[in-house]
């Protein structure tokens, strides 16, 4: 086992691995420590959506950068095989169905803001929405917010590609290796203690999302991150291309759904439980997801759900992540509390974190996610959470 690294990253999810990638690319010697297996915490349980349609400057900017990177993901990964095996980022768009004047006015405002950063979103008519998704019931739809450059991606293929690439670049990834303690000397991080021994490191990144506070306790720091149980489902496959974009309806329990490349629908609703560490699937969710999905796309009544699972949204009070330096100890950083957006934000967040850790600053709007904003009572406007 490696005993000395420049950076030790705790957590082998999308955030930890993507940050490891950027750091390795900048010549840092990285080690990733994953208590289970890569992606096993929240990444593999996610809804797979990637969107720039947010309602605030920072998240839009971050997502514009993220989408740039997602688009070139296979190039970054220098994937040797066919692109289809490397990664399946599909720019199939995000379609928010709007059912009231107030929703339309809110989303119109968002669209104007998105235009400022070059996001080609627009408000479209119900008929146009049906052209995009021919099976939609538009009888009550008043309008839709549409952005064709949003999309979705496979978390499984993304994690696999990152693991391979990080290792190719000399980084090390240890699975089944929980970190039990931060090593600290004179208020400066010197490494981590793991189940397999100590690793010296100049910097440590806590990328454990819902579990982030476990490591912080040791230094008496607690950020407001709580685990909430969310669930998702997958259906049996039908002909691909029938529901290309991520379709979202706040009216229907905050439902989001899209068809995967293999033809099955993946999606969920906003129903959540918590804070809790229990992620067992609930009947209430299964029932409500069936009820709401079939109101958006009635023909889904003929399609069977084949899987249902739970996972955590690591929620903060304003549903925005906690990113930055942990002031209490030198050399210690955090990127956690993604509140359901970690997968989509990962490329840009990881790049910003790598900038911060190697250069001390970044051009991305990292201040927005300042870990100490809650202490100061400066909560951000709640980020749009669905999908």
């Amino acid at each position, binding site marked *: 086992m490696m005993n000395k690294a420049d950076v030790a990253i705790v957590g082998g999810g999308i955030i930890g691995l993507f940050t490891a990638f950027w750091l390795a690319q900048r010549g840092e010697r990285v080690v990733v420590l994953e208590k289970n297996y890569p992606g096993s915490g929240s990444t593999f349980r996610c809804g797979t959506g990637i969107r720039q349609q947010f309602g605030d400057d920072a998240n839009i900017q971050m997502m514009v950068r993220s989408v740039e990177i997602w688009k070139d993901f296979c190039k970054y990964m220098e994937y040797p095989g066919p692109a289809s095996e490397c990664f399946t980022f599909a720019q199939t768009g995000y379609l928010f169905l709007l059912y009231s004047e107030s929703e339309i006015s809110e989303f119109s405002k968002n669209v104007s803001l998105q235009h400022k950063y070059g996001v080609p979103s627009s408000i479209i008519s119900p008929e146009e929405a049906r052209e995009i998704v*021919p*099976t939609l*019931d538009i*009888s009550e739809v008043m309008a839709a917010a549409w952005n064709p450059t949003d999309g979705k991606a496979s978390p499984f293929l993304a994690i696999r590609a990152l693991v391979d690439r990080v290792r190719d670049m000399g980084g090390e990834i240890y699975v089944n290796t929980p970190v039990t303690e931060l090593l600290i000397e004179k208020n400066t991080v010197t490494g981590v203690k793991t189940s397999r021994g100590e690793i010296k490191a100049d910097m440590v990144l806590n990328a454990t999302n819902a579990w982030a506070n476990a490591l912080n306790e040791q230094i008496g720091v607690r950020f407001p991150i709580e685990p909430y149980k969310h669930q998702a489902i997958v259906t*049996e*496959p*039908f*002909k*691909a291309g*029938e529901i290309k974009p991520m379709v979202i309806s706040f009216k229907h329990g905050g439902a989001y759904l899209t068809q995967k490349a293999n*033809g099955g629908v993946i999606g969920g609703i906003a129903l959540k439980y918590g804070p809790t560490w229990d992620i*067992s*699937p*609930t*009947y209430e969710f*299964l*029932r409500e997801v*069936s*009820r709401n999905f*079939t*109101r958006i*796309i*009635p*023909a*889904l*009544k*003929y*399609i*069977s*759900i084949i899987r*249902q699972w739970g996972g955590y949204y690591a929620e903060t009070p304003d549903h925005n992540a906690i990113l930055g330096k942990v002031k209490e100890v030198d050399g210690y950083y955090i990127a956690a509390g993604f509140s359901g957006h970690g997968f989509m934000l990962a490329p840009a967040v990881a790049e910003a974190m790598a900038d911060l850790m190697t250069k001390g600053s970044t051009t991305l709007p990292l201040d927005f996610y300042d870990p100490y904003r809650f202490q100061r009572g400066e909560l951000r406007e709640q980020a749009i959470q669905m999908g």
Partner: protein
Amino acid sequence: MRLQEHPVLDFSKKRGKKVTIYFEGKPIDAYEGEPIAEALHAAGIRVMNYTPTTGRARGIFCAIGKCSSCLMKVNGIPNVRTCITLVEDGMQVERQRGLEPLPRDYKPPKWKDAERVNADIIIIGGGPAGLMAAIKAVEHGASVALMDENPMLGGQLVKQTHKFFGKREQFAGVRGVKIAEILEKEAREKGVNIYLETSAIGIFQDGEERIVTAIRENKKLVEFRGRAILVATGAMEKMIPFENNDLPGVYGAGAIQTLMNTYGIQPGKKVLIVGAGNVGVILAYQLLQAGVDVVAVVEAMPKVGAYFVHAAKIRRLGVPIYTRHTILRAEGKEKVERAVIAQLDDSWNPIPGTEKTYDVDIVALSVGLRPSIELLHQAGAQALYVRELSGYVVQHDERMETTVRGIFVAGDSSGIEEATTAMLEGKLAGLAMALYVGKADVKNAMDEMEQVRKDLDEFRSGPFGERARIGEKKVMIK
């Protein structure tokens, strides 16, 4: 083709009213009470769909709703398991060509709250284990609701035309079909609440209660609520790798029994059987009874696995059993037309020059079963791989309770054995559940459990019970 005469079974009484279904627009005769795939098979239609990626033809394989090989479009709805969906007059059935588009239906369904069924005990699976558990639990004062996704009760007993061994109280000398009738009658008379054509899709915790959600007749949601749940979901047929093992006509042994013994449909004209365990050898005999030619039984092991009496019977009737042989490939265009077998050497490799080709239209695979533990797994029960029980099984204690409190297991889903042990395990689970829900008299139930455990031990005590004994030791929680 339909069987008109059979030495054991009388289908003229079993068949329902004649109806007409339409296959790709063509009218086909069918009988009420018969599933779609079986009716199509009787009309000579073997290909049910073409696969999405390679466009290969697929027909039935398990015929009990477990393998998804028979999916078709029925009345415009894709992915219908035609082997367990009953025919209705005027039904439109089409082959599925790859993945089908969504039906263009813009009418949101009227949401009706699910039908709610309450009972002390919910049983999933109406085979020998489930039925026996239901009977025992009711006898000891508990209320029971039982569901099965097939259109009839009895599980795999409904196609067992042979007589059982063992003790008299374990139905020795009685044919499986008859045992199914006896158990069904008893369960119904005792007031077990029975739901057929009802597929359990999930087990959930809701406070003190557990919910089993199920879909009835492919469309209605039913919530079964109870405090104890028995998963007695049986087994799935295994598949072995060989060229063209997906050709329509390569059927699981159980599927052939379903066609022939349950619905009176001639499965084919000439059959090669792979696997000389009890299932394979009994199948050979049943095929002969139904007037079907069995060209040979091949067995990769050096010895016949079946009981001597069964094997001797088919040998007497002139069916060769080739040990140390396996199937190399099936041949034919969209259906089995030939099968090629070969002898194996000591390291299980085919010996060149020993190939034999048979003109057959059916290859029957009786290469073992694996427990159906999907629902137990979903409910969070701890599973492990036990070779002697033929696959992944869940751990259970001596009362058949799994690692999840209140969830019990019995029959093949707890490890592959046979119908007699399934009934005994079902008894045990039924008694334990009646105790668990607080309805049984403790002393009576405990005494009876003691007796059942003795019977089980006795049944497993012979050389044929060795695998089960080893397997049980591995899954048992002390």
